[in-house]
């Protein structure tokens, strides 16, 4: 029975995604209310099934969790290769999955009105369903491969939702930037998965960390393997949670519609990296340099977000950096070994931030209402020490915050430009080589150019 419930928990959002996708593929005319109702019903079914598993588990105090093998994608024993759809309902995954369903249900209800008569209404809900499916897969994953499946779905839906308003260049360019960071993060996760597979012969979390259950489990790997695999996991988490030094994409991601910003960058997606670190916490226990690294990344992220967040001038960017500050603290807690504290912090922060982001579009109206109720202007004067600009240090810090820590510039100068320069040069060489080889004439100047006009005049 519980296996059927587990299938429902995981399968409901996947079914929603496939259903909406097929309807769009075959151009079936569906109206907004049908899509909205379908989404709500599916979320309710999934949440109900999850609670049906979680409540008895809580009563029986089975905190070490239950693992369900829902099928093998592929099993090649002779090649020692398998991909299993394995899910783990334990004290880490169940609260996070409940939060996912609750917040996604709230956001779906909000988006029904917020996106009403928007041209891409159906597209939004399709991507939203993809995100929900990916998030549920990643959170409940019992093996590294299943986590990777969900991780990729979350990444793609995020990038496409950032570029949701796709008739403008800004959102699209930012969507591509998010995708680039996510793909680097995906590559690190894939390598970590393969490394773990080769080191332990298994990708299941229960096999990797023993049967004691989270967070008391201990890694069954050598410290060196734990360090290298953990390092790749940290890189993956940095990309997904916008941890320093990969934080540059976060404010850019706010170009998407507010509901998607809320669910991705305030509530769920941004915590997925921290969740991954919690899931692999036995590896952190195994290698103290890795724990130190995690603490360092967390502290750096928190300081960065605190400095940059103070000088933001729009509410969504301000909230984005406030989220990042909290995520930095959560990561620090994980590195220091406070696993339950980090989990509770994550759940509380996600809920608060969702509320703040959903209220963000109407914040001016809220102020007007507040001032009408008070009968006077709200005292909004900032008294933050960070804004005292009299010292040179203060000015420099202000400039640093305004330029978002020069992170984007650093990546651009250090990585993007040399990369583009080198390969553009290779392209030019190839073109010349082909021209020489084929004895082709050099390419004609573009039509209507000044050069052509001068040639014609001669």
């Amino acid at each position, binding site marked *: 029975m519980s296996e059927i419930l587990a299938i429902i928990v995981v399968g409901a959002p996947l079914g929603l995604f496939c259903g909406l996708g097929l309807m*769009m*593929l*075959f*151009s079936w005319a569906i109206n907004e209310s049908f899509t909205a109702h379908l989404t709500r019903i599916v979320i309710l079914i999934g949440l109900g099934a999850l609670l049906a598993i979680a409540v008895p588990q809580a009563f029986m105090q089975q905190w070490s969790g239950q693992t369900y093998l829902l099928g*093998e*994608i*592929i*099993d*090649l024993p*002779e*090649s*020692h*290769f398998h*991909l299993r759809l394995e899910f783990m309902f334990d004290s880490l995954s169940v609260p996070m999955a409940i939060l996912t369903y609750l917040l996604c249900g709230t956001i779906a209800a909000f988006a029904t009105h917020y996106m009403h008569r928007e041209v891409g209404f159906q597209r939004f809900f399709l991507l939203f369903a993809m995100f929900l499916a990916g998030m549920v897969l990643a959170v409940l994953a019992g093996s590294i*491969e299943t986590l*990777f*499946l969900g991780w*990729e*779905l979350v990444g*793609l839906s995020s*990038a496409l939702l950032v*570029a949701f308003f*796709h*008739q*403008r*260049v800004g959102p*699209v*360019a930012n*969507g*591509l930037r998010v*995708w*680039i960071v996510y*793909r*680097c993060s*995906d*590559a690190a996760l*894939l*390598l970590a998965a*393969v*490394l773990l*597979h*080769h080191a332990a*012969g298994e990708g299941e979390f229960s096999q990797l960390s023993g049967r004691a259950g989270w967070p008391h489990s201990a890694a069954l790997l050598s410290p060196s393997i734990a360090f290298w695999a953990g390092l790749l996991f940290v890189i993956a988490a940095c990309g997904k949670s916008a941890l320093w030094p990969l934080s540059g994409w976060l404010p850019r991601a706010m170009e998407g519609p507010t509901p998607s910003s809320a669910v991705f960058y305030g509530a769920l997606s941004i915590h997925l990296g921290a969740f991954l670190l919690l899931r692999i916490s036995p590896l952190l226990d195994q290698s103290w340099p890795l724990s130190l690294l995690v603490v360092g990344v967390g502290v750096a992220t928190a300081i960065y977000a605190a400095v940059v967040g103070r000088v933001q001038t729009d509410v969504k960017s301000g909230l984005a950096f406030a989220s990042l500050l909290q995520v930095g603290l959560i990561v620090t807690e994980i590195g220091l070994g406070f696993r339950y504290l980090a989990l509770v912090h994550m759940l509380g922060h996600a809920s608060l931030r969702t509320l703040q982001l959903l209220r963000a579009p109407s914040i001016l109206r809220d102020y007007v209402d507040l001032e009408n109720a008070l009968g006077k202007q709200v005292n909004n004067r900032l008294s933050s020490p960070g804004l005292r600009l009299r010292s040179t240090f203060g000015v420099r810090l202000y400039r640093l915050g305004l330029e978002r820590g020069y992170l984007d510039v650093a990546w651009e100068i250090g990585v993007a430009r040399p*990369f*583009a320069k080198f*390969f*553009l040069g*290779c*392209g030019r060489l*190839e073109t010349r*080589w*082909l021209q020489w*080889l*084929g*004895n*082709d004439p050099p390419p004609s100047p573009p039509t209507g150019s000044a050069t052509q006009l001068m040639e014609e005049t001669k």
Partner: protein
Amino acid sequence: MSEFPIPWLLLAVALPGGAALLLLPIKNPTLAKQICLAALGLSLVATLAEWWEFSRLQADEAHDRWDVLAWTFGRPILVVDRFSAPLLALNTLYGLLVVVATMRTKVSRVSFSQWLLAQMVTQLILSTDQPEPLLVLSGVNLFFPWYELKRRRRPVRVYCLHALVFWLCLSGGYGLMSISPATSWLHGLGQVALLGGIMARCWTFPFHCGLIDLFDKLGFGSALLFSSALLGPYLAMRLGMPNLPDWAMQVLAGMALLTALYTSAMALVQVDVRRVFCYLFLSHGSLILVGLETGTLAGIGAGLSLWLGSSIAMVGLGLTLRSVESRFGRLSLATYQGYYEHIPHLAGLYLVTGLALVGFPGTIGFVSFELLVDSVFSTNPVAGTVLVVAAALSSIAVLRIYFRLFTGSHHQTTISLRSRWSERAAITLLILLLVGGSLVPQAFTESRLEAARQLLANRTAGLLGTSRHPVSPTLPAAAAPSLPEDSAPQAPVDHVPHPGSPHAPVPVPATVPRTQRGSSSASSPLSPLSPANRIQAEATVASRAAEVCVKFQELQ
């Protein structure tokens, strides 16, 4: 060798050929297209029947019972094995889809009879495993792009140079290896030439420029038809694998890896869509080749699975871009085009095929790519890492094209540019194939592993000189590489010696026990321990063990 009760192979080859002859006097392009569609449709049915029948026979090889070519040449020419059985159907499907997706405005510029003839020759190549016909047919196949270039009055010099290098190296190398003893320098020269020929046809660096030139100058459809069959890796498996020594396989794998990384990075900085597509094509062709050249069962199986999966995605991607190009002209990525609102279906198909190409979850390429990374990583962790980086770069290039072509601005037009029903049918079929294929990865991958096992057996037989098509054996029998335990060929009951074959069926060499995970990769060309070295190491270990035993007895 098993026999097909109905000559499916002959039908698959003869139908396009016959239709091509029928089309010669026909001047009406619409009628020509319809005849072409009918011929390719029937040919697809024949190849699917051949595949189904072959799976039912559970044989290693099969040929037609009523084979006209066998009567003519005294031996079966059209033979399929586990490796080539699905490739025929796939190639016909590609041809059919290219014709279906050809718009009416472009029909008058296409020579359908030439496409059909090219299709026939490709089918012939894919349905033979004998070196001499392969060499001749791969030479004939080079004629069609040349003819098309001439017809379009485009420069042919680069193409001719590339074709000449490829064919001379391939046939010269094979010829030298056949006539000279294994110990002579001529044999070594032959190996180098054969390797060069295979590298040229696989478009590995620096020969990749040939394909870029071809995509620039040829029509998109013709270029797609010429390249989609991946004849380079096919020749590498048929001619290279049984005959080339380990060092040559290592070079090929290394160059393929370099090409994959280089071309995927180049795809990111291009502004011409055709060029980006060409680089993506090169990158994925190279990824397949890396898998095939690992020399392990899992690696070759992964390469073959990726071959089927990602080539469907690649053709889908090419067709989508071709359909977009036929509406808006040559596409540029220098600015945002914003075509989504006019052609949302094509945008969706582009995204699905592009993601399938990079092995995104839920598509046919996912499991194959995972298996490929796993097997290459177990052979050489650096190579595995490079593979992942190359795929990540490709996926960034795929989404970059999507954003540049379909979004970012508002494109205004005075006429409807919606996709036609035939395009929608092709789109739906491809999406169903790409997504549906991911639902049955077990059977699909197992069948490719069987094919890999057969190819490994062919390699052993080729190096021992006991192949059905032997050149001088590269290794003495004692030094032949042993197959990993899991790659031992399973001789079927109905496996009888090939008519006219001087040798018995492939012998099964001694197996090596797998003591630990990844031990089978020790014989891999990517591995630092080559088979010859490994045998030497094993001999050293054995002699040391004997010495220890003797000392132990003396002590007692």
